[in-house]
């Protein structure tokens, strides 16, 4: 309880500027006592803005001694920057005076004697006295509260995600830069507005009810458990969000802090993850399916082999023992059975090999391709069907690969080249290669019948033949085997040709670009 002194109102009876004594109204005594007795800082000013009463709490608030303030204009208690506008505001108040808080929504400051600014809250009440209309201003030092607010503001500003502080009526009172960025507004566009502007229109109607029920039992929790939440940006676009709510109690009342996370990116990442998981699962499925197919074709071919062998063997026995008893037509029919059974046998064996190549583990070593190719060419030359073929073998780069499988590749490509150039004069087969970055590229070129590029896509498929088998023997598995091997080596194979002007087959393998 402040001590009641008379000096706060003593000597206040003369105008500080002109010395004119004021008439002392009897009620002034009472007023002075009441003002002094009030538990908050109070100043009373007259219509012209002169301070008439200053209680000791108000003196303490502004740092003045008793008697220093009475008779001064009230503007001396204002920071410089507000002084110019203040008389007009004062006058405005006088015209429609009623009890109300001053400076609605704005931060108010008083000027301490030592020059520092004190955040204050001011309530204004008109006082009708015999000396005219006075204004009583009740002042609350809100430094501490401001400091608390400031802490909150700093915390919210520093948060790595969007944060919005909403008062109990749903008005936005604070937001951080992340919230500005997320919703595309500046904070001045949002301060004081309802939080509903950040909601899609379809969700606004139920929101007030939800807010009210939250305030009845406020607790820190996730909002919209189980539902997908959306915010709406300034440009009208919606953004998927997650919201955490925390109640914040302040002297100014109940606030709710909404902590908002933009989950668009997470959703995107999630969908990518799901997609890639799907692709992986699909790959595994495809691989399993592929393995199944391989072993299926292996066992089918394998089981076909025995009866085919029996047909061929029995036909051969028949031929050996009874050929003389057949007439010419009988012998022809028997020879067709034999040659067809034989062809079936070759087909089955090649399918088995194709299937085995697909399953066999690769034994990768660094290969001297040139000596590999020369060895195979020598073998071919020893056989009668490569007689007269001219081979040009250039220096070949080394590559990594499975020796046995690549031997098969070269055998197939070279014997193809020989086969299809047999009718040229002279049949010529050229083999060369080069390094291409980390790859080695090889080419086998002949001057044979070639093929129509229109059918190039069929070249490497099983059983595809671009030439009549009467003209060129073969099963159509050879190039499929070549393709399979190269693909398993992560290489590439392609062909180039013109009908009647030879063919060129090229393939690439991983290599180390050196001749070591």
């Amino acid at each position, binding site marked *: 309880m402040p001590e009641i002194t008379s000096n706060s109102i003593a000597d206040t009876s003369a105008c500080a500027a002109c010395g004119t004594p004021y008439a002392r109204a009897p009620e002034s005594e009472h007023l002075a006592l009441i003002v002094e007795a009030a538990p908050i800082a109070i100043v009373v000013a007259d219509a012209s803005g002169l301070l008439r009463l200053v209680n000791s709490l108000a003196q303490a608030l502004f740092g003045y001694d008793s008697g220093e303030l009475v008779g001064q204009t009230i503007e001396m208690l204002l920071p410089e920057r507000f002084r110019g506008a203040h008389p007009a505001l004062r006058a405005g108040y006088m015209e429609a005076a009623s009890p109300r808080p001053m400076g609605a929504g704005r931060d108010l400051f008083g000027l301490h004697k030592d020059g520092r600014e004190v955040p204050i809250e001011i309530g204004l009440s008109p006082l009708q006295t015999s000396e005219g209309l006075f204004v009583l201003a009740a002042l609350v030092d809100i430094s501490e509260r401001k400091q608390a607010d400031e802490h909150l503001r700093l915390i919210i500003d520093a948060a790595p995600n969007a944060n919005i502080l909403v008062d109990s009526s749903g008005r936005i009172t604070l937001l951080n830069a992340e919230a500005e960025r997320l919703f595309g507004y500046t904070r001045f566009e949002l301060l004081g507005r309802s939080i509903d502007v950040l909601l899609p229109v379809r969700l606004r109607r139920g929101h007030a009810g939800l807010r009210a029920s939250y305030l009845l039992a406020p607790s820190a929790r996730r909002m919209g458990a189980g539902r997908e939440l959306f915010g709406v940006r300034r440009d009208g676009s919606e953004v998927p969000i997650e919201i955490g709510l925390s109640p914040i109690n302040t002297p100014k009342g109940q606030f709710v802090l909404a902590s908002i996370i933009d989950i668009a990116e997470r959703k995107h990442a999630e969908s990518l993850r799901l997609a890639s998981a799907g692709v992986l699962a699909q790959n595994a499925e495809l691989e399993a399916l592929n393995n199944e197919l391989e072993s299926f074709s292996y066992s089918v071919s394998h089981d076909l082999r025995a009866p085919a062998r029996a047909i061929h063997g029995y036909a051969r026995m028949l031929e050996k023992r009874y050929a003389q008893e057949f007439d010419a037509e009988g012998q022809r029919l028997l020879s067709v059975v034999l040659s067809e059974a034989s062809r079936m046998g070759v087909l089955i064996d090649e399918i088995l090999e194709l299937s*085995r190549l697909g399953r066999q583990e690769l034994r990768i070593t660094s290969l001297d391709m040139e000596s590999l190719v020369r060895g195979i060419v020598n073998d071919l030359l020893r056989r009668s069907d490569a007689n007269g073929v001219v081979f040009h073998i250039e220096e070949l780069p080394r590559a990594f690969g499975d020796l046995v499988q690549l031997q098969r590749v070269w055998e197939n490509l070279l014997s193809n080249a020989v086969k299809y150039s047999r009718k040229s004069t002279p049949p010529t087969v050229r083999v060369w290669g080069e390094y291409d970055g980390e790859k080695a590229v090889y080419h086998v070129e002949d001057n044979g019948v070639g093929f129509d590029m229109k059918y190039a896509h069929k070249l490497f498929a099983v059983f595809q033949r671009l030439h009549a088998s009467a003209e060129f023997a073969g099963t159509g598995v050879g190039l499929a085997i070549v393709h399979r091997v190269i693909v398993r080596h992560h290489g590439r194979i392609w062909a180039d040709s013109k009908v009647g002007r030879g063919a060129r087959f090229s393939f690439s393998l991983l290599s180390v670009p050196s001749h070591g």
Partner: protein
Amino acid sequence: MDDSSRTILIVEDNPQDTELMMYALRENRFDGHVRLVRDGVEAIAFATSNPNLCLMLLDLKMPRVDGIDVLQNMRANERTCCIPIVILTSSSQESDILEAYRSGANGYVVKPFDIEKLSEVVGAMGAYWLNVNRVPRR
């Protein structure tokens, strides 16, 4: 000891394959005995009771006791451990080849499709294995 006292055992459950092999042996003019059994149990029984057995041509995939079991059984028995056994089978799977040799096979031949080749192979095997343990004639 002449060929007539020597016996080759064919262990094969496919009658056509058996007949083809018999044909191949005849083509190679083998004049000893050729015996046929249809599964592993019969093969082991025959081997333990016939000291004249000088070559077993063994299929891998058979009912009852399969080829690998026959091999292991033969190698574990003192009386049969030194009889040459050549696997003659349809399987060209590397795993089968490895397992056969690990179980004590002396040879592994994938049944040739062509009867001429079969004949060649059987002839060559016979010539080799029937002579490899023979005491040279004076």
